[in-house]
């Protein structure tokens, strides 16, 4: 008698793509607003970008119920940190908190593919990219989600930054200006929308700078 298999799964994939690019004094975080299940669209206006702290913004694709639960945990941990330390969490600190939070559910993971963007202690842009169970690394740019395999090669071509592992150390921040980075993001999503069924509807872009966060919305193909 072979082992019985479950006839249901606690996970679902709501699709979507998230991208983040780090600049010298800014960080661009973008995601489409389509939420799907199977071949159906649940919403054309669902935001996948969430502000965790003044200098740390999380964008997650995957199973949005798990993403919501993950945010709740991070939000409450951030509040406790603020009470204990009388200041907001820095982006690198939030990055490690997210990694540990994900790993604590190592044996029943959050089905969330995260990209954390923000400004580090010196005011330079930083992007952290994760897998579902918490392994993370600081990068100059990243794409996660259903369109990531379409977008990453293009970003590699346009933004290829020297690896942070090289010696002598070289900066992994892109030399692009803020407007160039935003244009690149728009181009990249327009292309991904053409070839990925789960990406489309609208593009939400958040630009993080020392003086605050700006949001921009662009229409994408709805088919």
């Amino acid at each position, binding site marked *: 008698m072979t*082992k019985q298999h479950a006839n249901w799964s606690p996970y679902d994939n709501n699709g979507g793509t998230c991208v983040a690019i780090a600049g010298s004094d800014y960080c661009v975080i973008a995601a489409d607003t389509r939420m799907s299940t199977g071949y159906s669209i649940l919403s054309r206006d669902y935001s996948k970008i969430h502000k965790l702290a003044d200098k740390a913004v999380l964008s997650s694709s995957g199973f949005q119920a798990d993403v919501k639960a993950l945010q709740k945990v991070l939000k409450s941990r951030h509040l406790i940190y603020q009470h204990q330390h009388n200041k907001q969490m820095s982006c690198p600190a939030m990055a490690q908190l997210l990694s*540990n939070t994900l*790993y604590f559910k190592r044996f029943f993971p959050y089905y969330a593919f995260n990209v954390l963007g923000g400004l580090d202690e010196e005011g330079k842009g930083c992007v952290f990219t994760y897998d579902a169970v918490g392994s993370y690394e600081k990068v100059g740019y990243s794409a996660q989600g259903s369109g990531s395999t379409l977008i990453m090669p293009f970003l590699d071509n346009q933004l290829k930054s020297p*690896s942070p*592992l*090289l*010696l002598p150390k070289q900066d992994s921040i892109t030399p692009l200006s803020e407007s160039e980075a935003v244009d690149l993001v728009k181009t990249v999503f327009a292309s991904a929308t053409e070839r990925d069924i789960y990406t489309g509807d609208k593009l939400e872009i958040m630009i993080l700078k020392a003086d605050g966060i700006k949001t921009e919305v662009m229409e994408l193909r709805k088919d």
Partner: protein
Amino acid sequence: MPMIGFGSNSEMLDGFSSVPSFDLPRTTDFDGFQKEAVQMVKPAKGTTTLAFIFKGGVMVAADSRASMGGYISSQSVKKIIEINPYMLGTMAGGAADCQFWHRNLGIKCRLHELANKRRISVSGASKLLANMLYSYRGMGLSVGTMIAGWDETGPGLYYVDNEGGRLKGDRFSVGSGSPYAYGVLDSGYKFDMSVEEASELARRSIYHATFRDGASGGVASVYHVGPKGWTKLSGDDVGELHYHYYPVAPATAEHEMVEAAE
């Protein structure tokens, strides 16, 4: 990463199956959602890591590629983890597993220092990690790591894996590219090497492994652990290393250019 026991599970037979049947294949028989969970874990066993002890201490080297199936998810993964200023760990297997447990080991080592007023030995640190992994045996962790450091007894190198196995040795290589790395490492190894010779050997071994193993690539990092702790000696893109070791003969290139112009 060694394949010993990785992911294997014997089928559960109960008393009713007395009807003779043909040999069924051994499958990784997980529940539906457990299977999804396993697939979600970012596997990094496509890797080449190596470490060896020589006269000048311990040399540790690794590539930096992470692959998810056939997709290269990153070319800049830090596979040499800095546990504390005098101990290094290498990563092979699940990236999150290695990162988390090495970070945890660093914390435990620090607590040991505070409680005992002296640094922990490499033997002690590797035992802490091995015992921790043993308690999670069979739960699907994937860790194939080497702990390298310098303590009171001199240079130390241990291999620890997710089965809870722990081996002391002076030459190890872990990962899909390890056979290629061993070939270059074993043929060039001498105990009496200078730090420069040893680091060049380590770098060359990683380069050759990345050349032949599709799952290894990116940047070859080389670290040295001496009596005063570890230092990073080099980080070279293996694509560029190729032309460093096998430069293109200029005459041939000119010839090609002349041909192309015609």
